[in-house]
């Protein structure tokens, strides 16, 4: 293999990996296209052609290798990785790292995930539920119980997501669990209003990333990926809604 060919291969690999990591972790399409074009440009490819979709990326540069495809199979929300890819791309543009280091760091980034520790996530879920219940409903006495129910709801969601890996099912089950817990808590006299507890506790499950990205993608003219994300958000919302509705039916 000639050195030019190797170099082109590396450019494609780096750009495609960067793009895949960004889409997998919830970036909007326009940013992915922008970053990949910049990587190719900064690495010395004269032109690059891109086709970025929410389920896969196709990229070609005018060199000695043909176009390559990178499928995007899973989708999670880990915005830190997007920030890291963004930083790396900036460093590469400023010639602080070379292409080989860039590619290595991307491969490394892919395998490790630096989530906040689990206890902090539980605390955060509690701190989304309780304060928002107070903000939306002005029901201070139910603050603590909403924190607890929201935290347990997130725990159910997290554990299920780890083992069954279908987000919609985890959301459905977790919403149903929240509904049951809210009803039980009010029955036991721990809370006053089932409605308020449920409204607060469900907030950590809100699909904020797909909603925002869907709007941004549609505005940027990505008429396939934008609505696809909108559907993702809608299915999430429907899953949560059905979970709650199921509990309310059996009230």
């Amino acid at each position, binding site marked *: 293999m000639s050195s030019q060919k190797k170099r082109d291969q590396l450019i494609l690999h780096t750009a495609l990996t960067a793009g895949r990591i960004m889409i997998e972790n919830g970036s909007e399409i326009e940013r992915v296209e922008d970053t990949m074009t910049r990587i190719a440009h900064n690495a010395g490819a004269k032109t690059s052609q891109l086709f970025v979709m929410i389920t896969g990326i196709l990229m070609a540069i005018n060199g000695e290798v043909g176009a390559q495809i990178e499928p995007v199979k899973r989708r999670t929300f880990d915005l830190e990785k997007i920030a890291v890819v963004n930083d790396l791309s900036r460093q590469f543009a400023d010639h602080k790292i070379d292409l080989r280091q860039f590619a290595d760091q991307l491969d490394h980034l892919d395998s490790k995930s630096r989530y906040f520790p689990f206890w902090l996530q539980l605390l955060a879920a509690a*701190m989304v539920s309780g304060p928002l219940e107070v903000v939306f409903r002005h029901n201070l006495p139910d603050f603590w119980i909403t924190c607890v129910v929201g935290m347990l709801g997130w725990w159910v969601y997290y554990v299920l997501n780890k083992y069954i890996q279908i987000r919609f099912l985890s959301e459905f089950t977790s919403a149903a669990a929240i509904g049951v817990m809210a009803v039980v808590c009010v029955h036991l006299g721990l809370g006053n209003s089932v409605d308020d507890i449920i409204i607060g506790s469900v907030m950590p499950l809100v699909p904020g990333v797909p909603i925002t990205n869907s709007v941004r993608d549609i505005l940027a003219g990505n008429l396939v990926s934008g609505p696809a994300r909108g559907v993702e958000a809608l299915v999430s919302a429907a899953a949560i809604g059905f979970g709650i509705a199921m509990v309310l039916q059996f009230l």
Partner: protein
Amino acid sequence: MSVLEFLIEVVGTYVATIAFGVLINIPRRALNVGGWIGVLGYVLYRFTVLWGGGYVIGNLLGAVAIGVASLQAAKIKRMPMILFNIPAIVPLVPGGQAYQMIKNFALGQNATAFVFLLQVVMISGAIAFGFLLSELVNRIQRRFWRHHKRL
């Protein structure tokens, strides 16, 4: 709304925005700014509603403020914009109305449910349109500062 209630709402919005940021794993150095942008959007929404502007206009103004402020934060911190605006819209999400809609549908009270459905659709539309307007501001700004283009 008394001053105390207002303070409780501000603190609640700030805490909830940051906590949502933790759940979607936003880098630590973006959390604080994201929290304040959330407060800004919510306060604008709240005052618009208090002064009789209606909840649709309120959400619209809130979303515009969040979009514009997020772009400034992204410029200053040199980080992607979505790190700031995703957690910040959480306090604007029509959670209460969506819940009432689901509840009334589940209980068979379709007429009431449709009222809430309409509210949910209007609020979501207002937030989306607010983002659209903020994008307009952002693109004009980007034309002026071409050399800061990279966001």
